[in-house]
């Protein structure tokens, strides 16, 4: 059991205040590995979680997550502070995941945005078959959600994770993924519709089983 829906694990969300973060960034720019270690402490689980869901292989995800922090450490001199450190880290992570996916060539899953909708029933905008607030996030349901994430295109998955998991705003996601805000909204809508359908099917079958 991971707890109720909407309750976030504190261990996963080690936010640091902006002043502390800025001080650590300044120290890290001077190649202070210890200061950068504190930044890693704050973001490692979230970055690894994101990368793990973007790539299929766990081993690959661990490699890429390390690469994210190494690249960030080496490139901190170029970090101008126009975006937040979080946005910058996730941009690096996103770019590395795309590079890795292209290298591995994951086929239609990567390129086709609407592949998830080609052979499915018409979209339902408000799925009333289940009420998420009443759901308990048990292991089984979390597996279903992970499956739904894995079955959607990479573009949709990225936006859904950044918005619903990392609590990023539309503008921030647009800057991270380098697409217009309207595109972010479109992708988020499609991703959520995909998720609702997947979870709705699971709940329907669970009810039928009972």
């Amino acid at each position, binding site marked *: 059991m991971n707890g109720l829906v909407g309750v976030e*694990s504190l261990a996963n969300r080690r936010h640091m205040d902006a002043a502390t973060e800025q001080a650590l960034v300044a120290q890290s720019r001077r190649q202070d590995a210890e200061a950068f270690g504190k930044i890693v402490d704050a973001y490692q*689980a979230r970055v690894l979680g994101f990368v793990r869901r973007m790539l299929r292989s766990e081993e690959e995800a661990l490699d890429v997550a390390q690469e994210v922090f190494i690249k960030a*450490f080496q490139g901190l001199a170029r970090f101008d502070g126009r975006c937040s450190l979080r946005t910058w880290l996730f941009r690096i992570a996103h770019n590395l995941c795309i590079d890795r996916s292209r290298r591995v060539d994951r086929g239609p899953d990567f390129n086709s*945005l609407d592949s998830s909708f080609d052979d499915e029933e018409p979209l339902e905008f408000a799925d009333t078959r289940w009420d998420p607030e009443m759901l308990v996030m048990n292991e089984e349901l979390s597996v279903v959600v992970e499956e739904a994430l894995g079955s959607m295109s990479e573009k949709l998955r990225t936006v859904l994770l950044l918005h619903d998991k990392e609590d990023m705003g539309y503008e921030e996601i647009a800057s991270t993924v380098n697409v217009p805000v*309207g595109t972010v909204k*479109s992708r988020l*809508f499609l991703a959520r519709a995909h998720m609702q359908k997947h979870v709705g099917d699971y709940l329907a079958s669970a009810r039928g089983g009972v």
Partner: protein
Amino acid sequence: MKDQELILKIVRETPMTASESLELDELLEAQVTSAPLVGALHDPEPSLSWRSALNEELLKCSVKPKRRSVTFWVSGFAATAVAVLALFVFMPHAPKVDRTAISTAPLAKQTGPSLEESLVSAHHEADLETGMGVSWTPEPNSSRPDSL
């Protein structure tokens, strides 16, 4: 059934009108209930071995440039110092210049033979005259009448 045109625009990621954009915002609001499903997913905590491997890599990155820069500056400074020292030690000293010689030399050329040259030529002329018997050399005894 909602507007199929809007759905096509969403799927194809084509630009929307202001009203369509508002409609999409409303649709996203209606989907908000599904957001906690993803938000509640557990992020894996990386292992200690993963972290120590990362720390090693970070340490390598932080040490290398420092060493390089210190070596660079020290060697650069030392090389410059040696070069300057060598310049002072081994620089050939220019001979002291006799300013009067320099200043009179062009004048001598312009005015004719130098003093030494004129003395030498005078000596040669005198010598020649003596040899040819042209020159009269007074005998010390010839002027005395009592010697006859």
